[in-house]
């Protein structure tokens, strides 16, 4: 089976859908001729023409706003926000418009848009090229929020997102665009081609939204992770030898609570990981749900390993990033609890 990087998988998903469905249009800053600053849309304008894939003015509110209008018309817009850190000017259109249109019009109008945005740190991007704002989307009813951790999922989830009839926020951990990353920034970079999940079938397939994936079976502790942190979790489990069960959530809303419940009831312990700042991060919701649903099975406090409650710093990137050592420590301490 062909092997793809995340970038290639994401591009291929758009390519497949643009070919299948001429309502699919792709746009954003530098997305047209240039193919996007991360190259995710490279070649699409050449292949499908400038009215199917084009550059936009630097206006995130405009990008999402016209996407909502296009979707109401009947198109399937896939908009790129150059960095998730720059989604804020478009947040009103996402929250007040895309997310609520179906509800407030009782289904007369809908906004089946996909808003793609690179997120997360690890590239020395500082506080404005490193953010993970997923919790700002998961709090907004009417949105679905997706974040893949590997090329196979990225392609399948993006195709599913484009086919979705509700607006989807599609977060792309930029640090793993071109290779998996386990947080060991001091070790040589690994290419995707050596990772089994870089095998992505050509053509159309989907990974359904709302389903988590079991990345590692284990019985001692459940680790809930998504995006880059899935790889960090795997490294931490391997290095500590802790018999951890690692769940890659893939979709944050709607959440696969069955998968979570099943695992935590089995292990009785839970560690939650994300790169975003801790307070009111999505880990809080996960923690709340785990204790609501599995209280009587829990043998130790649920732990969160997250970014600190500071902006993402530049020089101190690796002090901020919740790397395998911090995860390992949390695994150990959760095992000792109870």
């Amino acid at each position, binding site marked *: 089976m062909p092997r793809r990087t995340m970038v290639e998988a994401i591009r291929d998903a758009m390519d497949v859908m643009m070919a299948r469905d001429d309502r699919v*249009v792709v746009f954003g800053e530098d997305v047209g001729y240039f193919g996007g600053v991360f190259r995710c849309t490279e070649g699409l304008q050449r292949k499908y023409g400038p*009215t*199917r894939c084009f550059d*936009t*003015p630097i*206006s995130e*509110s*405009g990008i999402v*706003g*016209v*996407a*909502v*209008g*296009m979707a*109401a*018309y*009947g*198109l399937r817009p896939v908009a790129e926000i150059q960095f998730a850190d720059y989604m804020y*000017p478009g947040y*009103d*259109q996402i929250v*007040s*418009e895309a997310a609520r*249109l*179906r*509800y*407030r*019009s*009782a*289904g*007369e*109008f*809908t906004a089946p848009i996909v808003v793609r945005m690179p997120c997360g740190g690890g590239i020395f991007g500082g506080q404005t090229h490193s953010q993970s704002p997923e919790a700002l989307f998961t709090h907004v*009813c*009417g949105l*679905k929020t997706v974040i893949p951790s590997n090329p196979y999922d990225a392609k399948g989830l993006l195709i599913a997102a484009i086919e979705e*009839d*509700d607006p989807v926020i599609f977060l792309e951990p930029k640090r793993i665009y071109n290779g998996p990353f386990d947080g060991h920034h001091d070790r040589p970079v690994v290419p995707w081609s050596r990772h089994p999940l870089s095998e992505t079938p050509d053509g159309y397939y989907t990974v359904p939204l*709302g389903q988590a994936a079991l990345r590692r079976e284990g019985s001692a502790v459940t680790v809930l992770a998504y995006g880059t942190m899935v790889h960090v979790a795997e490294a931490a489990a391997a290095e500590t030898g802790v018999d951890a069960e690692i769940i890659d959530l893939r979709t944050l*809303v*709607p*959440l696969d*609570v069955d998968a979570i419940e099943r695992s935590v009831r089995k292990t009785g312990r839970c560690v939650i990981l994300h790169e975003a700042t801790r307070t009111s991060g999505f880990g809080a919701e996960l923690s709340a749900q785990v204790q609501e649903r599995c209280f009587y099975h829990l043998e130790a406090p649920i732990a969160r390993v997250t970014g600190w409650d500071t902006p993402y710093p530049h020089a101190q990137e690796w002090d901020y990033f919740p790397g395998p050592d911090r995860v390992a420590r949390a695994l150990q301490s959760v095992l000792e609890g109870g």
Partner: protein
Amino acid sequence: MTTEWQSLSLHVPGPPVRPGDRPDFSQMQIPRAGEVRRPPVDVAASDIHDLAYSVVRVLNRQGEAVGPWVPALDVDALKLGLRAMMKTRAFDVRMMMAQRQGKTSFYMQCTGEEAIACGFQTALGTGDMNFPTYRQQGLLIAQDWPLVDLMNQIFSNQADRLRGRQLPVLYSAREAGFFSVSGNLGTQYVQAVGWAMASAIRGDTRVAAGWIGEGSTAESDFHSALVFASVYRPPVILNVVNNQWAISSNQAVAGGESATFAARAHGYGIPSLRADGNDYLAVRAVADWAVERARRNLGPTLIEWVTYRVGPHSSSDDPSRYRPKEESDAWPLGDPIERLKKHLIVLGAWSEERHTQLQAEIEDEVLAAAREAERHGTLHDGPRPSAADMFRGVYKDMPRHLREQRQEMGV
């Protein structure tokens, strides 16, 4: 080096007068009807900059239609226009009353502004899409959209097509080319541009119309809309309804002191016009011009409609706190219904008697509709949308967490 200069001071604009003062529209420059030229629809934006500082007017004081903008409307079309405006006004009167009676929580009239929506709608065709504000009920009433349907929404009753979910007057009527109104100002202006872009992408022939109040032009999305309209030149008409007030804030607070709202288009290379929004004929003529531009792939047009908000901002507002009570009477562009009525009389096609009779008919029709709507319930009385409706439509298919919450609620 800065010490040689005098102290700076902040300019804080406001209306020329406040309650207790005498109304003052002396700053307004209003050309005579018929005075403004009618350029060809493919004119360059830069060749009509002057029209953004003038006012296209057709009906003169004598009730005659004069000048190059007189639209080709027969007497029947004019009567339909009159009827639509009168119905809109009667509807507003009845619904304000219903609000006072507690049948709904909230209402917004468009009194004095009826010509704009009622006239504009007749320039559109089937399949075109308006992105209206809360003050464009005339777009629906001019299409004879059932009043009962609007009232059901206002009463949030069991027959409300929006299932009680949305604030009164924030209608949605897809079949009528009336996009779901948002409670957030300005957001839909850029959506109209996006819809029009989609129409152009698909090689369609349908056009979109965005609507915004002069106060809301300050919002970000006004700019986003103009930028995207300027860049991609989609078939969209960008309407700015300048009714002089934004709740308690005079248009000066939105920048109206320094330039007209029509002039905003200049920096984007978008052709723009300013028109008498209380002149049904001017509205139709200018709308036709802009719609033809859109239809002929000539791109966007911005129109500032000059009018006056006669009533309170909403049923929650009391304008006597911030503007002279008499200001409405002093408004120099008159009342749109009176002006069209006079024109029809001048044409020999109308009379005071027929007007009185039509008024009575319309009031009956509105009252009958209100009675029918009330049978489906009002906000605090009678049948209403169910609690289960609250959980539906957040997503196309109800996800598990909402199913669980619905169960938790026991509905």
